[in-house]
């Protein structure tokens, strides 16, 4: 039996641009997750491992509502609402007892929340993945200048993500809530002294972060699979993002998310291509893929060794 | 004139546009207590950090016992014989008084990489720690958890930990802070006796204590030394009267 001959995939300019777009889209999605995480840490000093569960809640709520009504917009609204509601409940019942605890207690308690959310979701929705698809008006590819065919939906995700980023910057810099958030980041006692109801502020910030995670879950659920446990891989990536960007910094979350998105996507394409220069095709593919899967963690380690508080982190 | 034990030569530290220390030159001579005074925000804390190795200066040099230690870190300066106390007590609150003192004794020994024999049963460590506690009057409470000490006792323990190092110079950041008149008086008497062992660079707000103890005085305002000299000289200095003492005197 003749062994099939390989033809190495060459990296053309069009392929490269498409991959950059993919990296951007992935980065923007990570930003939606990371923004909530970094806000919650910046304002309340809380490490929330259960953030990925809120992402899952958003995706499941969207799938359920889309299945019942057939409307993708309603599904997005439901995702935002369900995640915000879940976030509010969790904040009121559990999280607010953790603000004065050390990180260790927070890690354990939110680890426990992951278990409860995941199995609870399986209990309600069953063990099989749910169906959620792109609405017709956003499906299929569009042709970009330069002859690049690119899925419209992914462009829409980039658009939504950037809009949320702009909205968040505006919220933090131009609104009363934003002023309070910034005050809360720098000095918790001061804002209590200013007469702001701090526990209400915390609930609002937590629910906002949860809603963003839920939105990300719903948007991504339409092109991936809506299933139990979908949140944890994203959660870890979101942590990588906020640590690279500097915890508490929304700007850092955006920069970190785009760095991670681009590194992961381009690394997966370029590294095997690079290794093909001096290894045979199969070994290059395996080795390159192995290294590519470690790449963002290597990026994070390098950033932290270079700047122990991330790119935009404030000094202790 | 004898060589100074500890000296800064034009040390400067900027935070952004603000120069917290601006060309500060000081000398600590053998056997003296040299007080540094100045209003809040004058740069006293920054100066202490620069002397003890917590911050690196943008310009200038720090010399200790004739050697340039500008590039050395905190540990190296401590091992060279620089004993420091903190303004806000930096003590292991969960540990006992004796354990805190033994920590100093471990530093004096030059290493803590022993993993088997209990530290408190090592006679050499224990004796050194107890001796220091006795000198500051805390021997009775050696077994008490530090968190349960009164504020004044914690100030004493701060000094005791520095004592265990048997340093060649002390740098003390407001040892009287938060103590009542009686406590201050006791600490003043104690420090008075200590100058025979090693000179003290004393940063202090309590003017009674400063006037009672200081052989020489430096006045720091906006990161600069505006006057240095004996008590009488500084009191007479018009710049000081205007900038600092003027309001009180």
């Amino acid at each position, binding site marked *: *039996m*003749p*062994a*099939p*001959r*390989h*033809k190495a*995939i*060459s990296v*053309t300019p*069009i*392929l490269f641009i*498409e*991959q950059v777009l*993919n990296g951007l*889209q*992935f980065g923007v999605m990570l930003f939606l997750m990371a923004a909530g995480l970094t806000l919650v840490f910046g304002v309340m000093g809380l490490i929330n491992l259960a953030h990925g569960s809120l992402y899952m809640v958003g995706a499941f709520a969207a799938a359920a509502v889309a299945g019942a009504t057939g409307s993708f917009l309603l599904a997005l609204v439901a995702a935002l609402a369900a995640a915000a509601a879940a976030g509010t409940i969790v904040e009121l019942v559990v999280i607010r007892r953790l603000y004065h605890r050390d990180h260790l207690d927070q890690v354990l308690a939110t680890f426990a929340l992951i278990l409860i959310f*995941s*199995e609870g979701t*399986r209990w309600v929705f069953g*063990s*099989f*993945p*749910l*169906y959620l*698809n*792109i609405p017709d008006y956003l*499906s*299929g*590819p569009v042709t970009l200048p330069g002859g690049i*065919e690119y*899925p419209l*939906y*992914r462009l829409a995700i980039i658009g939504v993500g950037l809009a949320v980023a702009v909205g968040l910057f505006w919220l933090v810099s131009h609104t009363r809530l934003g002023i309070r958030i910034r005050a809360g980041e720098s000095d918790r006692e001061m804002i209590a002294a200013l007469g702001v109801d701090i526990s209400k502020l915390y609930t609002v910030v937590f629910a906002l972060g949860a809603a963003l995670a839920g939105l990300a879950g719903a948007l*991504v659920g*339409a*092109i*991936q*699979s*809506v*299933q*139990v*446990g*979908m949140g944890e*891989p994203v959660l870890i990536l979101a942590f990588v993002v906020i640590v690279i960007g500097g915890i508490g910094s929304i700007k850092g979350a955006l920069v970190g998310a785009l760095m991670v998105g681009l590194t992961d*996507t381009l690394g*997966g*394409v370029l590294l*095997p291509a690079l290794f093909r220069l001096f290894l045979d*095709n*199969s070994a290059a*593919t*395996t080795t390159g*893929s*192995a290294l*590519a*899967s470690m790449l963002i963690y290597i990026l994070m380690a390098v950033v932290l060794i270079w700047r122990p508080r991330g790119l935009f982190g404030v000094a202790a | 004139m004898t060589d100074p034990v500890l000296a800064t030569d034009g040390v400067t530290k900027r935070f952004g546009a603000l120069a917290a220390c601006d060309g500060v030159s000081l000398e600590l001579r053998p056997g003296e207590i040299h007080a540094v005074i100045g209003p809040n925000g004058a740069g006293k804390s920054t100066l202490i950090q620069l002397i003890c190795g917590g911050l690196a200066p943008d310009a200038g040099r720090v010399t200790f016992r004739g050697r340039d230690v500008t590039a050395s870190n905190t540990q190296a300066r401590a091992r060279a014989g620089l004993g420091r106390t903190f303004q806000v007590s930096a003590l292991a609150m969960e540990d006992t008084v004796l354990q805190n003192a033994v920590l100093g004794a471990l530093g004096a020994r030059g290493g803590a990489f022993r993993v088997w024999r209990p530290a408190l049963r090592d006679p050499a460590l224990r004796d050194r720690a107890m001796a220091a506690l006795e000198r500051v009057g805390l021997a009775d409470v050696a077994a008490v958890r530090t968190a349960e000490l009164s504020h004044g006792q914690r100030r004493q323990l701060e000094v005791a930990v520095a004592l265990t190092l048997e340093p060649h110079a002390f740098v003390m950041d407001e040892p009287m802070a938060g103590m009542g008149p009686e406590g201050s008086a006791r600490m003043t008497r104690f420090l008075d006796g200590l100058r025979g062992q090693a000179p003290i660079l004393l940063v202090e707000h309590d003017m009674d204590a400063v006037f009672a103890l200081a052989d020489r005085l430096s006045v720091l305002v906006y990161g600069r030394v505006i006057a240095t000299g004996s008590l009488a000289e500084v009191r007479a200095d018009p710049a000081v009267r205007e900038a600092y003492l003027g309001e009180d005197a």
Partner: protein
Amino acid sequence: MKLRSLIAAACIGALGTAAAASEDTVKVGMITTLSGGGAGLGIDVRDGFLLAIEQAGRDDIEVVVEDDQRKPDIAVQLADKMIQSEKVDVLTGIIWSNLAMAVVPSATARGKFYLSPNAGPSKLAGQGCHPNYFNVAWQNDNLHEAAGGYANDAGFSNSFILAPNYPAGQDALAGYKRIYDGELAGEVFTKLGQKDYASEIAQIRASDADSVFFFLPGGMGISFLKQYADSGLDLPVVGPAFSFDQGILQAVGEAALGVKNTSQWSKDLDNAANTAFVAAFQAEYGRLPSLYASQGYDTANLLMSAMDAADVGDAEGFRAALKAADFDSVRGDFEFAANNHPVQDIYVREVIKEGDVFTNRIIGTALEDHSNVYVDDCKM
């Protein structure tokens, strides 16, 4: 008994047989995945297995079911429990190759029988084969080889192939290439658990491929298919049945319509055993059976056929009875190769929509009486 166990001794209404049962009852330990993300597969295997026993109305089988949480160390621990405490005669149930690799060698070395309802790693088919290990599903490479066979039949000459970078993924691509005669437009290993395939799809688009073969089990396949459908690419896609299984097909939806996949079973296979199975499964559980359910069902029937021929205490005889495979498989003809792995037809299926439900129908046979390449490595 203090342990959670589903006692499936289906002695409904058969009072008085219990005393006799203890004499020659066969005790089966089922270790499978019942919680977490991969639970759907284990539940189907369990349900198919228990259905067969219930249908047979037998009271001489006792089944202890435990959840391995898809963790190898838990599976090993449960196997120890089954062997040491429950004193089972036969083990079965494991879904994942890595868990099978953890459990099977030591279980068979301790004299237990193991009937695999799903996983068939190459090591257990070749050098690591064992007379007490019987695979009732397939050797892992089989469905991929069949995909290669289908590619030849369909005239594909330049395939782009992708799989996750782990042993089963590497085996999958090797299996496809073993039978496929054409050239490769590209070969990509993705991250295990990866959910975004935009990058790979871009590479497919940039290549001059005329077809795509992929092995991406579970959620990975759902993601790939949805994104592929949305990308506007219309190259024919072929893959093993795992991404087109009844359980997850509903989550893929329209994106899977028309896609070809290879499987040794399909619910529309025309034989009496299968018709009865599909009807009974729907009646019992209210859902269509999956590939995994069919494998669990066959496993139980194989076991019962051996019990009719020999006593489990007689290892030599029981082994021969299992090897004879004298049961009506829902997939039609079934026999064991020398290394105790199936020799069977593997079909090509197409995803269709029946009413509101997405399902598969057979459109041809990819490989007939297909065995596996590891037979010669197996010395037993």
